[in-house]
């Protein structure tokens, strides 16, 4: 389409009787520029409704969620006096008595406003065990009329324990790196450096590693199963290929939930898989495949197989058979021809299929939730759990942040090296 043609949309300009292009070069090119500008504007206006809707329904929610990972004003809002009293504390030892008095005042006010529990929960997220101590102190402050608040607070050992005040001081900054570091099992130490959390508190690195491991295992399995089938479909005559491709597309078109449901039926102790294993003699007794890592990988492999296979197939079917024939006629053995002529050409398709499956596996939620056991839950399940059970939005946000960084980085590599067109299936 040539840029010199007037767009279909500059009809009004023509209707107003402007000189036809070519009558006066100057006016004509100005009219052209105007028309082109209008054209751009109109196409933007056409796309605007969907872009706005996506910003509202997708963009803002994700940005809002991610912001929760680094912005948590709960403690700062609940402890205004303490924040002020700690402003020039050097972080060493205990702060001055003024800070204790300010804390007592803040705690009493939270109790009066009914926000004490929220504060206790927020502190507890950063300092396990803080919840009960905060609530205890609040009750004592309320109950002991006449007794100086400073004494009451000092009498609770928790408020003089090492680690308590640095945590409070940290919490009074609404912008925090605490949750992001926690999501990687890291924390700030007393000297201002970053260290690993003690092993008994470390959970997330293990979950990330598990997610990567499952994703890698599923990717490898889909490649082993998918590559030969893609090769076969690309090599047989058209009619047979069409039938075989239906076998790939039928599961592809069935929802993940339905396929997961099918696998929960198959993997039961008295299910078909166990029947087969017994019958074939691969197992001497019925195995617990449900709620196991291997069951999860099998089900995920089934779901992801078409995602790996289709991009490989779409490259394979563009390779002319004559190339292999040429290689044979030049004296190459089948294996050599395959390795030196065929493989280098299908490599982008293999990359696309594997990368796509790996990226999608990182975000699996339904299948681990239904088929995985407690030790097979992937990172998405932890995110959901922090929202549904623990009600800890900040931690859910931090885990989402890290998962999203990995996903988008891999997607960026995909788009950069392979191009977005490879995302198209079939």
């Amino acid at each position: 389409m040539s840029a010199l043609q007037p767009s279909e949309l500059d009809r009004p300009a023509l209707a107003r009787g402007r000189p036809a292009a070519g009558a006066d070069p100057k006016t004509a090119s100005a009219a052209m520029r105007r028309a082109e500008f209008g054209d751009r504007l109109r196409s933007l206006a056409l796309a605007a409704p969907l872009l706005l809707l996506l910003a509202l329904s997708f963009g803002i929610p994700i940005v809002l969620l991610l912001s929760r990972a680094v912005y948590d004003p709960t403690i700062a809002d609940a402890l205004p006096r303490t924040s002020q009293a700690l402003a020039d504390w050097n972080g060493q030892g205990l702060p001055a008595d003024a800070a204790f008095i300010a804390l007592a005042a803040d705690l009493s006010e939270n109790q009066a406003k009914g926000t004490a529990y929220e504060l206790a929960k927020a502190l507890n997220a950063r300092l396990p065990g803080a919840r009960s101590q905060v609530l205890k102190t609040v009750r004592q402050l309320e109950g002991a009329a006449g007794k100086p608040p400073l004494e009451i607070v000092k009498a609770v050992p928790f408020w003089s324990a090492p680690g308590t005040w640095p945590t409070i001081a940290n919490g009074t900054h609404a912008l925090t790196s605490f949750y992001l570091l926690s999501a990687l099992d890291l924390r700030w130490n007393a000297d201002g450096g970053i260290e690993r959390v003690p092993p008994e508190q470390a959970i997330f690195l293990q979950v990330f590693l598990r997610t990567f491991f499952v994703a890698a295992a599923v990717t490898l399995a889909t490649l082993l199963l998918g590559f030969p089938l893609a090769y076969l479909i690309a090599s047989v005559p058209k009619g047979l290929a069409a039938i075989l491709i239906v076998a790939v597309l039928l599961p592809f078109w069935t929802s993940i939930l339905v396929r997961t449901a099918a696998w929960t039926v198959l993997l039961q102790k008295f299910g078909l898989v166990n029947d087969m294993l017994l019958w074939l003699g691969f197992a001497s007794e019925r195995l617990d495949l449900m709620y196991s890592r291997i069951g999860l990988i099998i089900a995920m492999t089934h779901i992801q197989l078409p995602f790996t296979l289709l991009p490989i197939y779409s490259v394979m079917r563009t390779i002319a058979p004559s190339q292999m024939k040429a290689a044979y006629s030049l004296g190459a053995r089948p294996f050599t021809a395959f390795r030196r002529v065929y493989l280098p050409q299908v490599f982008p398709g293999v990359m696309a299929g594997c990368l796509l499956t790996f990226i999608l596996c990182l975000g699996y939620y339904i299948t681990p939730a239904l088929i995985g056991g407690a030790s097979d839950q992937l990172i998405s399940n932890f995110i959901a759990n922090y929202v549904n059970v623990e009600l800890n939005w900040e931690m859910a946000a931090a885990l989402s942040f890290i998962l999203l960084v990995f996903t988008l980085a891999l997607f960026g590599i995909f788009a950069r090296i392979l191009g977005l067109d490879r995302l198209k299936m079939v």
Partner: protein
Amino acid sequence: MLLSPYPTPGERIRVALLWLWCGLVILFLLVPILIPVPLSFNSGAFFIFPLEGLSTRWYEVVLGTQRWQSAIGNSLIVAFGTTLIATTLGTLTAIALSNEKFPGRRIVMPLLLSPLIVPVVITAVGSYLFYARIGLASTYAGIILAHTALASPFVVVTVGASLTGFDRNLMRAAAISGAKPLTAFFRVMLPLILPGVLSGAAFAFVTSFDEVVVVQFLASAGQRTMPLEMFIGLREKLSPAITAAATLMMALSIVLLVVANLLARRGQARRPASG
């Protein structure tokens, strides 16, 4: 070309092994999705072969009890709402993007596709957080809005593909003949790209109808959809009613997607010979 012109016995064995391996892979692909079908017609209450007898009692449960009926109703409300919005806005966007002068095409396309790549839990949790603030949590509108984000990329892609075969000179001809832009769209462009639009609509419908994670976070107890009922059922107690529900859902998505793909193919076949 499976065999070289003068195959050695070793090569014949390799090709036979390839067929065997692929046969097993095809069984692996098909058996799991076919297995719920006979089980859903089982008259017994267990998932064990051999079947006790044929009956439609589990379909009566799914189609006849209030819990499942309301779930099917909710699914249809959400899926039709999503399809309507995603198809309309997605088609407009695909038309805009098919214009080579669209500013920032290279940025817009990855952004449009990102809902397919971002882990759906993140989308669901984010929507839950934001929609609760603006009063859209536990509303059909909220679920439809979130589903539109997930479904519209399919519409943009399928309509975009059918537009690559659309000759823009036709719109110019319509304009010169005096048609207003809207008339030209409805009488010239839409009939030609209709297969692509319908195909996109079918994709959007299936995407929404099958979706369970976003619904899990956004729906109130009265707004449970069919997949959500299935998910809850699978977590609580395994009932053969689930295999009936699964069979129904599978049949619906396969039928719609077969239609969608046939339409998409037809849409692209209309590409003019000159390109």
